[in-house]
């Protein structure tokens, strides 16, 4: 009797624990939005950003699977991983752009300084 009671109680507690973590739909939507942003900025053209975006996609599909298995807390964390990956991807695209702009600006300075060297 007591043994059965403990089992029932345990199941109930586990259910309650699951219930305290709702499906992380917001977190996942957030991650997806950042990933779209990275794509639109042109992450595909920046190798490092492209890699980071790929990682985000992997984390997000893991999060989806975990959510399907009702492991909402882990799914939430996994979606957070994806969101942070995507945000880094965006920053990497912007960095690549800034570096390119800096290089071009440097070349312009050189061109003004030594006009005769112009090809």
């Amino acid at each position, binding site marked *: 009797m007591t043994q059965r009671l403990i089992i029932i109680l345990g199941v109930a507690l586990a259910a309650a624990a699951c219930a305290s973590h709702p499906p992380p739909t917001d977190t996942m939507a957030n991650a997806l939005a950042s990933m779209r942003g990275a794509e639109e900025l042109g992450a595909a053209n920046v190798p490092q950003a492209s890699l980071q975006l790929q990682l985000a996609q992997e984390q997000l599909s893991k999060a989806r699977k975990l959510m399907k298995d009702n492991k909402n807390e882990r799914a939430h*964390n996994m979606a957070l991983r994806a969101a942070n990956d995507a945000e880094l991807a965006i920053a990497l695209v912007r960095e690549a752009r800034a570096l390119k702009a800096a290089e071009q*600006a440097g070349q312009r300075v050189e061109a003004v300084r030594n006009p005769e060297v112009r090809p």
Partner: protein
Amino acid sequence: MTRSKPILAFASAVTLVMLVMLAACAHETPRELIAARSAYEQAAAGPSKELTPAELHVARRSLLHAEQLYDDKGDTSVVRDQAYIALRKAELAATLARTQLAQRMVAAAAQQTRQLKEQEVARTRSKLEATQEELIAERERRAAAEQRVAQVSADLARLATVKQDERGTVITLSGSVLFASGKYALLPAARTRLKQVADALMKGDPNTTFVVEGHTDSRGSAELNQVLSLNRANAVRDFLVEQGVPQERVTAEGHGAERPVADNSTVEGRANNRRVEIIVKPGRSA
């Protein structure tokens, strides 16, 4: 007692092995956490501290949170997730700082380009202004020179006949005004007039040279006329030098009766042929 001893030994050995395993487990920090720590250290040592302090602070809090979870729960998936996030936040702070550095370089380069262009414009402008000033000065010099020539011509015209021919400006002084017949000593009246001629000549371009030519009419022997004409030319030249015309600018030539300007068969023609000419030759640089 004797039988329980090996059992006890076995039990303690098992316990020891378990403790060692536990210790080993406890020391196996998840690789996400190791990566997060090193990424944060790198970011904190770089430009992020100055350029993106807010993002670096977020990364630090994220890492501390992961460390706290690790202390509480050991190597669990939650710890690994949190460490992974902390790692990304540290990388983000560093990336944003590098981006800002690059942007600052762009701004600095733009500023430099602007300054260089301004310098170039200023250089061109001052060059143009210098050219302009030179042009104005040149124009003024030319006007002054022309003025001087005009002044000299006007002065000379009052003293003698002045005409232009292929030799230059020719100033003709009548022989009867300058010398007594057959002599080559200057008459006192001639000195006054020649002095004014010398003054006029010296007012002109300092590069001009003068040739004093003596001429006679056709009476008398050619040899005598030649000597007389040269002596007269020399007398005029010496007087001009005496008045301050530099010696190296004035030469004398005697041409006798070789170059008449009028008919030697009339009195008037002969009078015109007895003359001294001063030829003004413009200097090469003028």
